[in-house]
């Protein structure tokens, strides 16, 4: 029943939309004043060579602030869902035994990821990449230590309180940059720092600061996200092991 209704409605939707997209400019021929203006003036106005970053963090920076808070809320939601039930059910997870070869690989690879992540964050205004992409890579660097099996080390490095605080500082940093602009008598998110030489990482004023804040927020958010899920798995596994042991003793 549901399938039949959907087959009809979905096919009609496809036809209607197919009809509608033929009203778009043919692929490859798009042009318009907004696009032309930004391509012509963004580099001159903001001294960063990556126009996408200029749009993301400057012209339409307010959207990005909303986006950071979407991530922020979602991570809190995940934490809320998973922490609340876990804390009551299980005790802290038992450490897994590290496998030495994995440990070595993880420990060697981790700094590489951290360096690449930092590079991406720092060069966001200039070349492709930026706070979001770099932040996820940074998170991967932190998580590699986990994969290496250094669970205890990882836990101290990613204590929930520290991560929460890091996430807040990141998201808050965005707001602080915006408020400084306001404090100087201009609009919220006004770009108040001096611009550097075109093409350098310090070139586009406050954009670089916002980039760093986003990088911090995203890195913390993704580490939190993954650890919440991992914790779920390890604590359930530990719980199960304890129960199996108890069963065996009982038998």
């Amino acid at each position, binding site marked *: 029943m549901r399938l039949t209704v959907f087959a009809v409605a979905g096919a009609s939707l496809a036809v209607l939309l197919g009809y509608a997209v033929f009203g778009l400019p043919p692929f*490859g021929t798009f042009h318009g004043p907004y*696009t032309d203006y930004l391509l012509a003036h963004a580099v001159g106005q903001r001294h960063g060579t990556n126009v996408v970053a200029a749009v993301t963090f400057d012209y339409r920076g307010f959207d990005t602030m909303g986006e950071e808070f979407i991530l922020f809320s979602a991570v809190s939601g995940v934490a809320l869902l998973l922490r609340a039930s876990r804390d009551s059910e299980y005790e802290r997870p038992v450490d897994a035994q590290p496998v030495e070869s994995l440990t070595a690989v993880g420990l060697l690879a981790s700094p590489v990821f951290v360096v690449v992540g930092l590079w991406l964050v720092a060069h966001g205004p200039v070349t492709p990449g930026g706070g979001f992409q770099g932040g996820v890579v940074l998170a991967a660097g932190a998580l590699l230590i986990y994969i290496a099996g250094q669970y205890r080390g990882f836990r101290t490095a990613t204590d929930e309180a520290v991560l929460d605080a890091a996430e807040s500082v990141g998201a808050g940093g965005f707001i602080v940059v915006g408020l400084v602009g306001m404090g100087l008598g201009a609009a919220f998110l006004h770009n108040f720092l001096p611009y550097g030489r075109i093409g350098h990482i310090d070139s586009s004023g406050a954009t670089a600061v916002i980039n760093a804040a986003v990088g911090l927020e995203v890195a913390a958010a993704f580490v939190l996200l993954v650890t919440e899920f991992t914790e779920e798995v390890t604590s359930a596994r530990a719980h199960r092991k304890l129960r199996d042991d108890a069963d065996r003793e009982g038998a």
Partner: protein
Amino acid sequence: MSYLPYVVAVWLLVVGLYGVVTSRNLVHLTQCLAVAQSSSYLLLLAIGFRTGGIAPVFSGVSTGRKAVDPIVQALTLTDVVVSVTISGLLLAISVQVFKRHHSLDPAAGREMQG
């Protein structure tokens, strides 16, 4: 032919929705939803593409060069982040649903009826 990218976007949207509608497993449903969402990346980027244009990054390139639209790319970046956060939330909810229901089938949620 010059409308192919848009048609592909429409196709992905409808296929993703088909998956959502027929899914019998919440984790599967989450991934179908991501496919439907990816149709909007494709639509936006295809709209902003300009034949012969370079990426809107002018490091080492004269700013006079023809480039593709940077705005749709910024919008798509936001869209990608939204998509992954929704996936994360739905997966967390799925884990909890399984803990309570011992099933991931959306049809198991009958106590909502009425």
